[in-house]
């Protein structure tokens, strides 16, 4: 599981040279291996459709639906009314209120400080206070 995660992180670490086919294949393999780990997080009771894997110190807001196929890295924060499926979120990420993400990857240390985003099949990168400040790479 960690092997695929490291490879994906390496690929998106160089956004200009992302090979889309590599990412899709790695995600597919990663989700097959993904285990469930939802017993430790900070927040209320969200809806989990397994497998959902939460690293340490993840914060989850109200009315959140995570799953299936979700990995959330350490110290990341999911705001209220968020719905995410088939997505990898790396460490130290902040997802804004009312985001709906499907089949996405969020790069580590990204922070999305705005509300309402509906995104599919994309790598999301950056520190953004508005949608147009986001770096979005479709796949």
């Amino acid at each position: 599981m960690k092997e695929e995660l490291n490879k994906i992180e390496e690929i998106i670490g160089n956004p200009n040279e992302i090979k889309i086919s590599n990412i899709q294949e790695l995600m597919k393999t990663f989700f097959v291996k993904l285990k469930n780990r939802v017993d430790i997080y900070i927040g209320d009771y969200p809806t989990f459709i397994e497998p959902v894997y939460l690293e340490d110190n993840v914060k989850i807001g109200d009315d959140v639906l995570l799953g299936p196929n979700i990995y959330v890295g350490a110290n990341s924060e999911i705001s209220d009314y968020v719905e995410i499926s088939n997505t990898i979120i790396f460490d130290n990420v902040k997802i804004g209120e009312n985001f709906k993400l499907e089949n996405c990857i969020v790069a580590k240390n990204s922070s999305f400080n705005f509300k309402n985003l509906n995104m599919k099949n994309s790598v999301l990168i950056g520190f953004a206070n508005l949608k147009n400040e986001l770096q979005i790479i479709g796949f």
Partner: protein
Amino acid sequence: MFNKNEKDLYRIKELESTNLATDDIRETVIKTKKEVERDNNILANFIHQCFQNSKIKSFDIVGAIGAGKTALLEKIVEILSPKFKILVVCGDITTRVDANRIEQHNAETIQINTGRECALNAYHIHQIIKNKDLDNYDIVFIENVGNLICPSEFVLGTDKRIIVVSITEGEWVVEKHPMLFKMSDIAIINKIDLKERLGTNVKKMIADAKKINPEIEVITTSAKTGENIDKLMKLIGF
């Protein structure tokens, strides 16, 4: 940014009652409730079509906490798993206790923790099946969140709905929960092994179920002793 109406709309999920809406948003609340119900039904129809296309027999099992849904499923899965490929979706507020129990009998399980929600809905099931190759399965069981009220709000697209009550819940449990009996195909009255000790009027429970829904098939069982499990298997078509 959200305006006031948008914020109120989100609150509706939690309120789920038109009576609690202030006059200025009452119309919006009613419209939204209707749309949610309609959208659930559309998804349920789609799910049913997917199951049919893959020749899957599917069952939604509802009932109160402790009625014996999981114990019955353990018995059923134990009998069927040598011959059929089974997927069991378990709904609970939290934990995967039920999924772990059922997994012991060689079925694939997926746990949904609903958090604050008191029933599974078609969206939850759709999220699962769109990530699965349904041709890999023969039977899907969905064990709904344990209660006799909320699951009546949402159909899930299964062939049949099975309601489980137990005689420990008292002989009035059926007449107190008519909606789910109206919407079910099979009613199981479980823990029949305790009948003598508890003195529960099981005939009344059966009569109440038939009065509420004349079409419903009613069976008494004991998941503990295995009583009438063979009859239950025939009733669900195996």
